[in-house]
């Protein structure tokens, strides 16, 4: 067995690592605490509002139909897994369920290139600023699926000290998929519902409830 020299350890207040990172941790904690204090109300569900005068316009209607068909046919999900639900998300992209049939196998690692954020699993308050930032970095038009009860309402961790009670407190959610965790079938059903929703977007009418 290899014997190592005993390593000299400096206790907490004198440790350079502690001093260098503590201020950073404090500022991050302040952001989380502020988020926790302000994000009480949930974002309203994004609704589709097509103004009446545009609904009859053939030109806008046909452009819309084309754009919405294109958008719904190539929804690139964001490569983001938070908890156990992410394994169901991964399984839905694998050969048995195969999201690529819908042109969705292109999981993008960069939020700039993704269209759909699948919030797969428990969102803790410590992760909440990161989720929010990823959502902010995504380019419009963007959609959010809340997968599983933890992301939808906190689920078994409802009223826990560290879990966000529903991801819709920090970002607007388009489709909720219940289950703990939902099977890939359920997630794919949620994605089909999102396709139906995307088909009803309009050039002129923006989705309500966005900031």
């Amino acid at each position, binding site marked *: *067995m290899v014997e190592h020299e*005993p*390593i000299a*350890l*400096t*206790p*907490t207040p004198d*440790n350079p*690592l*502690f001093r260098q*990172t*503590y201020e950073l*941790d*404090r500022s*991050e*904690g*302040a952001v*989380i*605490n502020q988020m926790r204090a302000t994000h009480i109300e949930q974002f309203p569900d994004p609704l589709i509002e097509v103004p009446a005068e545009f609904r009859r316009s053939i030109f806008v209607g046909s452009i819309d139909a084309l754009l919405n068909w294109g958008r719904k046919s190539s929804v690139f999900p964001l490569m983001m897994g938070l908890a156990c639900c992410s394994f169901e998300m991964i399984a839905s992209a694998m050969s048995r369920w195969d999201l690529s049939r819908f042109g969705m196998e292109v999981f993008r690692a960069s939020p700039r290139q993704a269209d759909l954020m699948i919030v797969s699993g428990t969102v803790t*308050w*410590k992760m909440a600023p990161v989720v929010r930032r990823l959502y902010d970095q995504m380019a419009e038009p963007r959609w959010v699926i809340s997968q599983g009860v933890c992301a939808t309402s906190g689920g078994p961790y409802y*009223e*826990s*000290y*560290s879990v966000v009670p529903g991801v819709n407190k920090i970002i607007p959610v388009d489709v909720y998929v219940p289950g703990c965790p939902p099977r890939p079938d359920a997630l794919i059903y949620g994605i089909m519902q999102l396709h139906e929703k995307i088909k009803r977007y309009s050039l002129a009418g923006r989705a309500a409830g966005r900031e």
Partner: protein
Amino acid sequence: MTIVLGGEQVASVIEAITPGSVTGHDSSAAWVRAETWPAVARGLHDRPEADFKFLNSVTGVDYIDHFVIVYHLTSLGHNHSAVIKIRCGEAREDPVVPSAVPVWRGADLQEREVYDLMGIRFEGHPNLKRVMLWEGFPGHPHRKDFLR
């Protein structure tokens, strides 16, 4: 299969290394006085008859009127394991235990986690910060008196 040393055996081993440090034992664990813990830990790690090179886990327990820290140790050379319990002070206020990080580096994150969730300070720990929760979180949530 690892031989699980009973409390009495562990107590006698510790007593042989550092006399006067054991306060008692039960069927599974030896109780060690907090002030002598650094010397006991060093001895358990270094002495060939003990040879506890591996720290399995660090646990904190809230007994309402006091806190207890439990160290699970294993010797890979002798293939035996031991449980050490340390009582942190007489009351709930400011429980303190000497850190085991100078002996077992693996105790680093586990002691930080115990500090984070139970609020037990580990004296001499090189980087005692919260690890699960964020700085600025009110209180220590795994204490029995923590209310949301």
